């Protein structure tokens, strides 16, 4: 129908310019709110040292399992209560934000660069490298993430670098696939042929011509992957093989609170809510980003 087509075309032409994209994104109230929440978490994590009312690792033996503020038996000093060692939940949660976001960003950046880089090479040069990479990818995918992570962490003990590697282990595959697929398509495109006709060198073509075009879907993917990584890190911490126990992390907190689930339920529940809130916001923002940057991937 002519009417329907023109509306889509209009949207696409608006979204083709950066100021246009920004406007579209800002018009999406859900995405904007979600984005603000993420920024808030980020800020809290960054400023945790200044904001927290208590030292997250300080134990208060006289206020063990204190209840959150709305209960009659609450301790006014600890807004969200304390855990089984008397540590302030609110402070620990704020520090937990720091860990989750930091790890999320680092792992996503790492997997993005590695995955997209390999993907571009495989997609552009094809040949044996591409074939070998497919085998590698297939093998990697058959490997359950958790087992590998468990193995590494069990081997090295609590170690942030190892944790990053464990989390990055399978993550790069998604970036690899998207980059490879987009490069395959781009390589046959007219603008690449034109560039080659003008005598452009291969690195130039890859970096200056193709890369800018494949960046948008990669950005969207990065946001959505961040959500997955945050949950993965929390899961590992929950199992005790994630962040070292001296660093407050949401997953560890949930594990700590597990034993008290029947009575002091807040110890396990609140950190989980924090994870939910952050991940949900990241997901919502990522979807808003996708609607603007890469309508092809749009679900509707």
């Amino acid at each position: 129908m002519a009417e329907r087509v023109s509306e889509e075309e209009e949207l696409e032409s608006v979204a083709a310019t950066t100021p246009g994209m920004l406007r579209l994104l800002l018009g999406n109230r859900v995405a904007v709110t979600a984005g603000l929440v993420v920024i808030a978490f980020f800020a809290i994590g960054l400023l945790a040292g200044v904001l927290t009312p208590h030292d997250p690792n300080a134990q208060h033996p006289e206020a063990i399992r204190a209840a959150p503020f709305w209960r009659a038996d609450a301790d006014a000093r600890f807004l969200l209560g304390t855990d089984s060692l008397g540590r302030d939940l609110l402070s620990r949660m704020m520090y937990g934000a720091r860990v989750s976001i930091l790890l999320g960003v680092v792992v996503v950046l790492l997997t993005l660069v590695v995955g997209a880089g390999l993907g571009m090479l495989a997609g552009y040069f094809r040949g044996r490298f591409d074939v070998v990479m497919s085998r590698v990818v297939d093998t990697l995918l058959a490997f359950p993430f958790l087992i590998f992570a468990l193995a590494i962490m069990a081997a090295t003990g609590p170690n942030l670098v190892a944790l990053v590697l464990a989390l990055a282990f399978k993550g790069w595959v998604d970036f690899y696939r998207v980059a490879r697929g987009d490069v395959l398509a781009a390589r046959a495109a007219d603008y690449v042929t034109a560039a080659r006709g003008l005598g452009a060198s291969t690195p130039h073509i890859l970096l200056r011509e193709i890369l800018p075009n494949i960046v948008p879907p990669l950005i969207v993917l990065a946001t959505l992957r961040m959500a997955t990584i945050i949950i993965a890190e929390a899961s590992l911490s929950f199992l005790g093989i994630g962040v070292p126990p001296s660093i407050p992390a949401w997953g560890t907190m949930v594990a700590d609170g597990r034993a008290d689930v029947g009575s002091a339920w807040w110890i396990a529940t609140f950190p989980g809510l924090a994870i939910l809130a952050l991940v949900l916001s990241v997901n919502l923002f990522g979807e808003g980003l996708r609607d603007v940057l890469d309508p092809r991937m749009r679900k509707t």
Partner: protein
Amino acid sequence: MWGRFFAQRLLQLIPVLVGVSFIVFLTMHLTPGDPVEHMLGQAGRITQEQIDELRAHYGLDRPLIVQYGRFLRNAAVGNFGPSYSHQGRDVGAVVAERFPATLELTLFAFLVAILFAIPAGVVASLRPQGTFDRTATVAALLGISMPGFWLGIVLMMVFGLRLGWLPISGRIELGLAPLPTTGLNTVDALVAADGAALWSAVKHLILPGLAMAAPMAAMVMRMVRSSMIGVLGQDYIQFARAKGLPERTVVGKHALRNALIPTVNIVALQTGLLLSGNMIIETVFQYPGLGKLAVDAIAAADYPLVQAVVLIYAISYVLLNLGADALHAVLDPRVRAA
């Protein structure tokens, strides 16, 4: 055609399995936790001789390549050796004991996810932005944003402890276990026509099953929804209506089949993730399956057991993809030409 199809895929299986086994082998052997010391740990003072003897017994003093060779040969016949953390019992036996439990739980979660997600996705797609759609979308977003272990704990808290409706650990009430024919309590109970056992088995499956199923159901529902919306805008749907077909045929036959094609891939992917989530959920609910076994085994540096479990997961994943490919070919005749 089908013979060639399966043969092709199975051949692709082999390098993948080899690769996986090699990785497993390497990671286990490169980690410092020495299994022999683990095993002898409790025995008090041990002499170096005893350690060396035990090591030789398990072949742990040979070069890595030789060990790997032995490993492969044995694995091919299902012999993984003794389990270090289970008093030297054969790994195969230990795994076989726990396998049905995980199989049952995973199947349950899978069915719950699919039976909920597909109809929900279809209904949501019929009125985009309508009330049902909006609710379903929110629910789906929550489903993929929630950490599985936390959902498990919350479910446990609310339905197990607070309301006391459902049990929070184990597979079945003590003393109610039916005669093991398949190892799947629900099936066995049905076979034995044992209502109490069946009900108990199901009750124990519900909470862990839901926790496992939630993220998968969320992703599948979204996929079905978006697929259906795309398909419903296609010309052949309009043509089907122009033929005078009732709407339920248009949606249920013409649209759904096409929408399921990309969904199959997501389902396969998610089921693979289901296996991962399984380890966490089993730990949360103290469910006696492979997942919990694996987690414990890694902590105990029980190489053979871990290797066996990982291989099982890897094989399951590959078989899953095989099944998804086959299903793909059944649904979409355009694929069969390849």
